[in-house]
């Protein structure tokens, strides 16, 4: 009888497959090491009994709005973390020019009086925004205008324009926190944008070789997000979209157009409309957003879209998408922090290419160009895992997280249902990087990544942590 692959001596196994399996085992070992010790953490916390809340300086804002963001009840027990979090929540509303929380001793020992001092903002809120999006590349919103707290009830009405590497558009939004006194926020967004999708012909892996295809989308969305208590773990969005897909492809800096292959055409005639429901549950227990050293970030989302009926074609006009994204941060030794991420996505084969999954780039699989590691027309399945060791690079800085280094290892694969997946098909990359927290912008990220087994270095520059 012919021996199976498992019975063969190691030296007879295919070298590439063995190397990747070894990489994966090493990766799994590190993941286990990082997660195991930090599953339970008991921490003794000093607390005080909240005797009273005084609010000063609110000429327009209803006191109830401030109470909502404080999320603390008179007579309840409060901790230092709770007060800090409340201060940050209040500041993040941008309703006030300044906001300050002061705690002073209460009438009895162990009691405290919280005084909230705010200075109202009279002008609309002007905002400049920029960043790097996994899908759209670099973007810029040079001026966004927001009318906050219109009637003193915490409403927001805002308009922003977006221009970028592969996106342009405008968004008009209305946001009503604590809808009808509940723990839910309501959002209404009207958005129109043009996105350019990247496609790589067979064998091409550089941006210059890629073709661009425009997708025009108009969307009206209603979202409900929990903001405190149990509801804060859940969010929901209902939307209707009208989508037009260009039937031609164009190369950057090249005026010549070519017809898009069938896999890059919309499932129905242009423009076609969809209605969609998005449900998500998420958790965030990170101790710090900029440089988390402990905690979890997790999300499980499910989305179902229904196309406009087309009785003539009699096609499957629905698709669902499920995405699981889990991240863990754990101190390992002294200031050495381990971070791991596991992401899996699945979508119906009937879905159009612009809803599907992609891999490659600074925010997903490092060592590869943006969205280059997926089949033409994108993938219906995607898995991505990353492990990072993060550490401060300067002992002189008071805030050690301002200048940090990282060693990373990424592994991922994007495929279609027809492809059989196994470990030997995993795309992997490893490398090192630095994170510099600079004024105004925040974390600037520079990674030098090596795809395995080619080891051709690629430099990634982006903002924020990778995950």
């Amino acid at each position, binding site marked *: 009888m012919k021996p199976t692959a498992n019975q063969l001596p190691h030296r007879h196994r295919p070298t590439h497959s063995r190397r990747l399996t070894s990489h994966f085992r090493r990766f799994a070992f590190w993941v286990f090491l990082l997660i195991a010790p930090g599953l339970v953490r008991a921490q003794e916390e000093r607390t005080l009994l909240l005797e009273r809340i005084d609010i000063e300086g609110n000429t327009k804002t209803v006191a109830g709005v401030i109470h909502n963001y404080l999320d603390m009840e008179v007579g309840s027990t409060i901790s230092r973390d709770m007060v800090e979090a409340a201060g940050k929540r209040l500041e993040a509303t941008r309703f006030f020019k300044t906001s300050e929380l002061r705690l002073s001793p209460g009438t009895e020992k162990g009691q405290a009086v919280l005084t909230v001092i705010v200075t109202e903002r009279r002008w609309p809120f*002007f*905002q400049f925004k920029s960043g790097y999006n*996994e899908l759209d590349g670099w973007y810029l919103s040079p001026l966004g205008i927001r009318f906050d707290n219109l009637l003193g009830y915490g409403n927001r009405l805002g308009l922003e324009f977006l221009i970028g590497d592969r996106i342009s558009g405008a968004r008009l939004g209305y946001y009503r926190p604590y809808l009808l006194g509940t723990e839910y926020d309501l959002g209404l967004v009207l958005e129109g944008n043009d996105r350019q999708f990247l496609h790589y012909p067979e064998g091409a892996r550089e941006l210059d070789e890629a073709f661009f295809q425009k997708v025009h989308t108009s969307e009206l969305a209603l979202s409900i997000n929990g903001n405190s208590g149990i509801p804060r773990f859940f969010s929901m*969005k209902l939307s209707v979209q009208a989508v037009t897909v260009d039937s031609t492809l164009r190369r950057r800096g090249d005026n010549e157009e070519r017809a898009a292959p069938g896999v890059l055409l919309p499932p129905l005639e242009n423009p076609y409309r969809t209605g969609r429901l998005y449900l998500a549950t*998420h958790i965030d227990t990170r101790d710090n957003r*900029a440089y988390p050293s402990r905690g979890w970030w997790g999300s499980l*989302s499910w989305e179902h879209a229904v196309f406009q009926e087309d009785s003539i074609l009699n096609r499957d006009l629905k698709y669902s998408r499920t995405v699981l994204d889990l991240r863990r941060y754990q101190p390992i030794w002294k200031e050495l922090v381990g971070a791991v991420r596991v992401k899996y996505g699945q979508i119906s084969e009937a879905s159009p290419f612009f809803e599907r999954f992609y891999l490659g780039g600074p925010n997903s699989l490092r060592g590869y160009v943006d969205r280059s590691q997926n089949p033409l027309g994108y993938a219906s399945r995607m898995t991505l895992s990353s492990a990072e060791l993060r550490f401060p690079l300067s002992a002189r800085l008071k805030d050690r997280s301002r200048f940090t280094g990282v060693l990373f290892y990424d592994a991922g694969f994007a495929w279609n249902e027809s492809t059989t997946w196994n470990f030997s098909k995993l795309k992997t990359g490893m490398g090192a990087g630095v994170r510099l927290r600079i004024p105004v*912008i925040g974390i600037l990220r520079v990674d030098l990544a090596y795809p395995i087994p080619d080891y051709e270095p690629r430099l990634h520059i982006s903002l924020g942590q990778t*995950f």
Partner: protein
Amino acid sequence: MLLAVAQGQEPATLSGAELSRSAAGDTLLCRFSGEPFLSESVQSTLLSGLPVLINLNLIIRTDGQIRLRENKRFRMSYDIWEDQYQLDGAGERYLFPDLEQLRAFWSAFNWKIVFPRQAENAEKNLGGRITAKLTLLTANQGRELRDWLFNDNQTEETSPGLMRDTGFQLDLNSLISLLWSSKNDTERSESYAANLTAKPAVKEE
């Protein structure tokens, strides 16, 4: 009577101030009572969770000539969570479980200065001046620009799990108000001073 005075006015007198040479010879001892450092306004500042900065300046003169300048800075605060007062300064941290113990610390404050003994004649004209400035901080003092620069507002994906979107937002209103608004008077201070004349030598503790 000791009175806290507004900024720009003459400082109030610091009580019990005296200067003496230690019996060992190379050390000067400056003593004063810092009880007014815990005035009502200071206490209310501390209890509202804000720190008070104390800046002590000592000048030593012989024959009317300034021979030595010394400076000490303290940061005094109250930690409501630990229910204790904290004093940081000169590389040390002192913790006081209540206000009375903090008051006792200040009531007979000893400041040792290395000042080698000089000729007997010059020693007769030994003197100096101690000044204290208490800065009662408000949370906003000097913070706006620093906050605007360093409290970067980094953004992450808005729909969890879908697209990784890392970026930043800039609050233009704060920048405009920093550039154009008039400076708020957010700092208050109290000043104290006393002239020092040399007393007979004391045995160094």
